């Protein structure tokens, strides 16, 4: 008895130490580094940093970009959410797919696509020039704002569309019967109800834009527009005198903004929770007149296609060009860029690395995340909750900051930094919280009674997991791990700092090609990635669809049974 108790206490201590070492220590190392000065400890690094003109510029740019891009994401995300949730527009599935496209395509590929579309001598700008209009340059502050805004539309959309569908129709009808017109009801009732979701989506978009590294890196580094994330990157790789200390102090500043925002967002989400159990209602609430419906429908599809599809197609087309920037004519076409992508040893290594990393990250996250969710939901384990909070903290940190923290922490341990191991650790620590959340949702949908019933009928622990828990939760768990898989497959921020010569990733290879001026090669590789990502996505969608169809069939039988029963009752048996 006593020894087993000792064992559990020892186990708990060991577990806590491991969590501290993996999640908390890196952050403390970063903090220590930022406070370390020549003469010991102090705030000198911060003072120095804030005195640099470029720092002020980076902070200003970050704020301008984040606020403006959030405004775009909130306006567009909420608008499309309203259109899709409430109105009678048709082609809602295509509309949603287009809205969510930036969620699936890595943001650096969207950036590359936009820069290919708005090439100085490209089709669009040539046309503008011929019409006497000014040429659009994407390598500017407004350019960065636009692309980040587009990339953050999905996060706002997803939160708002779910909320709108959950607002009971009765609430609006009660407003109408109280004497208010549909527009007044939307303003006084619907908008007020949806506000927490919109605000929370806006907060997430804001956090995502200060976290974003790849877009300002692709568009801002060459044109001299620093933001905090790229500035930290530049400082960290410059290896100048105390550049690490300065990067660390900047990171701490950025982290405070990010963690503050995350906490605020958590509060906003809580405000929503009273509607959590309400079922989503997808029926049409506002019938638009045919003319307006068509204008909104085709207008939205057009704008959304312009956001992602057109630029991506333009980029794919440019990948077939012998020389970047020439006209798309038969004599200019060649497959040499693709030949490079498929034969170059460095590219192959990067693809292998990324796939390996994605698979391993996924597996680690599924096991750790689901175990944590189980302990949290069923056993109310404090250790599991602590683990989740620690994992949420590393997720809240901007990627570039986490990367820096990883460097400081893991250089102390031999044989990690400089190998692929540091990337595995970094990915797993960053993404595991997503799996904990997904598995928790899955676990909550499994009533404890299901498990208890298994036990009552004589199944052991292994059998219960194999025959009951896993089959019931599998779909939900896999949908989170799909997100983790795609994110780590196309990751750039962490790998830009942590990868070394042999451990480059897909994202980093594209980034290096672009920074080196090999636009055609980076376009060709991006085209391949878009193809792969969409294939994986279609496969998942296909499996889902088949599942849904399978799930529908028995329901039909059920309802026919109901009918028979009702019929029997009607006969007065």
């Amino acid at each position, binding site marked *: 008895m006593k020894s087993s108790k000792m064992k559990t206490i020892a186990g708990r201590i060991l577990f806590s130490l491991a969590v501290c070492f993996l999640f908390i220590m890196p952050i403390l190392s970063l903090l220590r580094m930022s406070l370390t000065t020549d003469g010991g400890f102090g705030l000198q690094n911060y003072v120095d940093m804030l005195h640099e003109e470029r720092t002020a510029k980076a902070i200003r740019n970050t704020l301008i970009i984040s606020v403006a891009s959030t405004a775009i994401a909130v306006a567009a995300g909420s608008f499309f959410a309203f259109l899709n949730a409430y109105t009678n527009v048709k082609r809602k599935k295509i509309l949603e797919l287009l809205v969510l496209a930036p969620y699936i395509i890595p943001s650096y590929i969207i950036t590359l696509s936009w820069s290919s579309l708005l090439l100085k001598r490209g089709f669009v700008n040539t046309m503008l020039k011929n019409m006497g209009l000014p040429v659009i340059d994407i390598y500017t502050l407004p350019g960065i704002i636009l692309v980040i805004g587009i990339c953050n539309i999905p996060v706002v959309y997803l939160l708002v569309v779910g909320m709108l569908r959950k607002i009971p129709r009765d609430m609006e009808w009660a407003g109408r019967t109280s004497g208010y017109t549909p527009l007044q009801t939307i303003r006084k009732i619907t908008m007020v109800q949806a506000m927490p979701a919109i605000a929370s989506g806006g907060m997430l978009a804001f956090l995502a834009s200060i976290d974003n590294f790849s877009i300002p890196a692709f568009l801002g580094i060459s044109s001299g527009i620093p933001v905090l994330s790229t500035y930290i990157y530049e400082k960290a790789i410059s290896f100048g005198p105390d550049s690490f200390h300065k990067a660390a102090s900047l990171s701490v500043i950025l982290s405070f903004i990010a963690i503050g925002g995350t906490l605020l967002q958590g509060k906003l989400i809580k405000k929503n929770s009273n509607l959590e159990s309400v079922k989503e209602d997808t029926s049409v609430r506002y019938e638009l007149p045919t003319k307006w419906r068509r204008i909104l429908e085709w207008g939205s599809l057009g704008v959304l296609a312009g956001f992602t599809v057109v630029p991506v197609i333009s980029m794919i087309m440019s990948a077939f060009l012998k020389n970047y920037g020439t006209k798309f004519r038969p004599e200019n076409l060649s497959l040499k860029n693709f030949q490079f992508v498929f034969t170059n040893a460095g590219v192959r290594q990067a693809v292998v690395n990324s796939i390996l990393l994605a698979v391993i990250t996924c597996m680690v996250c599924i096991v750790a995340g689901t175990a944590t969710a189980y302990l949290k939901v069923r056993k109310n384990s404090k250790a599991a909750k602590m683990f989740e909070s620690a994992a949420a903290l590393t997720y809240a940190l901007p990627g570039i900051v986490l990367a820096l923290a990883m460097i400081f922490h893991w250089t102390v341990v031999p044989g990690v930094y400089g190998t692929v191991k540091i990337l595995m650790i970094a990915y797993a620590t960053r993404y595991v919280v997503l799996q904990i959340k997904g598995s928790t949702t899955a676990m909550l949908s499994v009533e404890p009674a299901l498990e208890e019933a298994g036990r009552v009928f004589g199944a052991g622990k292994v059998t219960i997991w194999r025959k009951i828990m896993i089959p019931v939760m599998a779909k939900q768990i896999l949908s989170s791990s799909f997100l983790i898989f795609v994110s780590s497959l196309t990751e750039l921020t962490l790998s830009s700092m942590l990868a070394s010569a042999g451990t480059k990733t897909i994202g980093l290879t594209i980034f290096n090609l672009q920074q080196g001026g090999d636009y055609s090669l980076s376009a060709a590789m991006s085209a391949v990635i878009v193809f792969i990502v969409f294939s994986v996505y279609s496969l998942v969608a296909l499996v889902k669809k088949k599942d849904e169809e399978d799930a529908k069939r028995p329901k039909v039988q059920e309802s026919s049974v109901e009918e028979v029963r009702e019929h029997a009752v009607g*006969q007065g048996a």
Partner: protein
Amino acid sequence: MLWDREHDIPVGKVSDRNVMRRDEKNMSLKIDHITKKFGNFTALDDISLEIQDGEFLAILGPSGCGKTTLLRIIGGFEAPTEGCILKDGEIFSSKDENVPVEKRNLGMVFQSFALWPHMTVREHVEFPLNSKRCIMTEEEKRKAVDQAIEAVGLSTMEKRYPGELSGGQKQRVSLARAIVAKPSILLMDEPLSALDAELKISMRREIQNIHKLTGATIVYVTHDQSEALAMADRILIMKSGKIEQLDIPQEVYCNPRTEFAATFVSKCNLVKGKWLGNMFKVENQDVVFETEPAAKEFLVKGICPVRPEEFEISRDGNGICGDIVNRQYNGREIHYAVRTKDAIYNVYTGQGQVYNEGETIYLRKKAG
């Protein structure tokens, strides 16, 4: 009297054919050949009826019978596919012309309460008065709100939010909100379904009081026949989008017109046999009921509807022979299931009449 609305219509314990008709154009809600289709599905099939001003009409039927659709069309949330609704002689709803919900001078109570989480009790009740529809001075508004809140007994809870109220209190807020602007029509969509059994009964009284107080026309949708019987002036029984019967409660209960009305409302046993004037000979039995002829449908089909309490059980050998297969003691009465050669009948007896399961007994229809 809380307010001075006239309601001098004799709210009728009279069957619909004899309802006192005032001027055709005046003071009524006329539903004229309403049909509603959703794609290929016909939710309402040629429904016509007239609701008198100040009447309490219950629409009763099982789920999917079209009762909620009819209420939504009256409310203006849906447009009919065919037919029209006239309010005081003017078009309210039709295929082409649909007066917007907010201009209909309605109040509505929902099954889900439909309270707004961000408003207090008082704000809920004030809300209809702040719309453009309402022309009252601030003083009148304040008074009206006070009166409505008092009428539902929530004066001490004015400042609470919906999250701080119980189910019954929520529905009272919903009632106060519905009546505060003195609407001429009150729509109620299963208002008591979300409440527990005890509360349902006490809220019935509340709704009856509101009806007396406001004199508003009430259209009350429910699937619970006891609610409809208890409160309504008339009951409209619907099935599969069609009207089965429209009558005062006593008629619906005692003289059902269709098999469905008989089984749904008064839980009748449908005894097969042959009608001969005031006699009904039970099929395959040497038993004859002496009884008033039932509605036409029953005469044609050769069925006699017998309510469970209209059967009488005896051991004397007279009547339909059967075995007791189930007994449930209910306090005031005992419910028996009796299996005869052809069917199983439900019988309710007084609590003194005890028979054992498996016992062979005889069933007769009580005289009168």
